[in-house]
């Protein structure tokens, strides 16, 4: 089953490779991994999307907790939570496609953030399914490139991951 694991980790060089190395060494899946410093610059927050049986997810959280630089680990997908991912997609926009892409972007509440006479860059935020749906709605022949940030997640309401 798919799980979203959030963790706080010391913002030190090599910390990311300790996490990614753990996943590869023990054969765990990583669907996506995002990391950036928090409001406290000495600490980073990482969101890892992974999948596995309950036993494997239990081992993943235990093994992550065992890393000396990891401060806290939460499986935010265990309860109500929000996920968002950012996508930038560059599409060919000429002739009648120009209008069609614009219309589709509007329907998805995406924004066009770069325009040339032959292309648009569309920015879209949402959960993975929404981003997938947008990609599906665009004629594949028009897509020049896509870049996705990977999932960021946060628990709803009182569920706070903080030191």
């Amino acid at each position, binding site marked *: 089953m798919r799980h979203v694991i959030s963790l706080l*980790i*010391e913002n030190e*060089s*090599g910390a990311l*490779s*300790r996490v990614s*190395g753990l996943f590869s*060494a023990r054969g765990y899946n990583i669907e996506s991994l995002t990391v950036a410093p928090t409001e406290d610059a000495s600490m980073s927050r990482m969101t890892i999307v992974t999948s596995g049986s309950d*036993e494997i997810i*239990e*081992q993943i959280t*235990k*093994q992550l*907790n*065992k890393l*000396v*630089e*990891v*401060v806290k680990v939460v499986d935010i997908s265990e309860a109500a939570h929000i996920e968002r991912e950012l996508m930038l997609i560059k599409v060919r926009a000429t002739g009648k496609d120009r209008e069609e892409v614009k219309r589709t972007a509007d329907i998805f509440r995406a924004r066009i953030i770069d325009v040339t006479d032959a292309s648009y860059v569309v920015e879209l935020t949402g959960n993975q399914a929404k981003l997938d749906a947008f990609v599906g709605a665009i004629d594949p022949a028009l897509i020049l490139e896509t870049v996705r940030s990977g999932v960021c997640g946060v628990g709803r309401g009182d569920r706070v991951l903080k*030191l």
Partner: protein
Amino acid sequence: MVLTGAEIVIRCLQEEKVEYVFGYPGGAVLYLYDALFQQEEVRHVLVRHEQAAVHAADGYARSTQKVGVALVTSGPGATNAVTGIATAYCDSIPLVIISGQVPTAAIGQDAFQEVDTVGITRPCVKHNFLVRDVRDIASTIKKAFYLAKTGRPGPVLVDIPKDITIAKCDFEYPKEISMRSYNPVVRGHQGQIKKAVQLLLEAKRPMIYTGGGVVLADAAEQLTRLTRLLGYPVTNTLMGLGGYPASDRQFLGMPGMHGTYEANMSMHYCDVLLAVGARFDDRVIGNPAHFAEEPRKIIHVDIDPSSISKRVKVDVPIVGDVKEVLDEMIRQLEAGAARPNADHLATWWKQIEEWRGRNCMAYKNSDEIIKPQFVVQKLWEVTGGNAIVTSDVGQHQMWAAQYYHFEQPRRWLNSGGLGTMGVGLPYAMGAQLAHPDTHVACITGEASIQMNIQELSTCKQFRLPIKICNLNNRYLGMVRQWQQIFHGARYSESYMDSLPDFAKLAASYGHVGIRVDRPCDVEDALREAFVKHKNELVFLDFQVDQTENVYPMVQGGKGLTEMILSAEDL
């Protein structure tokens, strides 16, 4: 006080009361060696290969409960150390390894003797550091020692670029350390311990199974008290031998692949299993699916939460320091009036004695040819069971574990997790330095000993009176055994040809070498080694039966009850 980085490193080691550093100099650590030279508190042991430096520090740590320290140079110094580090990591041994690194400005430039030591060692250390500022040396080394010995112990590496060892700053050794990301649990959960004690008292067929965690936590005394208080059977894994006195009636021997019939049957058919500082390793429980077929409640005490419910599902997990948890169990038992049901226990013991009656460790001795088991048995007799015994990896390791009966912890040093051939001699060096007045014997084979035989030179330099018992069967014995049983007796590359004359080899290093060919000479040779040549290293080269196999045996992938007890079962 303003000191250079190199001086700070050595001062830190002094502050940590380090007796011995095992190491090998090189370009990147020249300033560290210069600082070592100018003091006398920390003594340096010059090995002949960096792998042995780490193993020797490891042997020192295993035999003392202290942190072992190794010092190596950059590049090949560090890569040679990796096997030693991984060996310690697999058995949770507290070590601090200091490695030199090329100067900060040269890092990433493919400099001479540059390697990404932190990257290479990352998967086999508890933690590692690259020091980038001389002002961080003292706090980093303090952290390294703290991390190495607390929680689940393990090796910690500190990589120090050469320019950092010349840079200067004010030195002050931190008194305490606190890390927000590292707070190992020490006290077990009271409610869980209560539940465990309740479950133990209600058991009809109880079993206590303990591993290296009992030795590491210095909890042998607690284990013995608890086991005797309950009157339950107990088994110690390969890593846990000495955790409970082997001569005691409640002790069933070692479990697992080459464990006793009674220990394995009791593990399998018990209804409540108390696992302490053990991790249900594949060499201990065999096939986990087969193990799970028999219903039983499992209580698991371990300092490392990730060891719990990893290979088998546990009913009562208790995360905490083994010593503290066992103390609390004893306290609760003694405070309460409830005692185990004597009738159930008597029935259970009757069954166990029946299993024990199979006498699975019996072997056919011979007047013609030396049986390896016989050598270990005689060694045990001659040393009164009081030696520190190290081993390498293979058949001789199993025979040592089976036939040398350990009464105390920290007397049996071997590579259980990684299974590293070549550890025996350097382990013995570390142990002998730490215990100059104790007999140290290295039970090895002609293949393993050659993996670090260069250390005979170190032993001469430091006058280490180790007794090497080479069970020489001219084969990679365990490989040969598996080839015989599983590969149609096709002995692919397992014959050891062109062996040296070990007695002469030892003599050439300035030691005593004795070759023993006949069973009737075994005891005399051992006495000669331990009495006449008490203060010298003696290399005893026993020519043993080439065809002897280790029994009992649970084949890989089989269940604990599916044992081969002797050659007749094949």
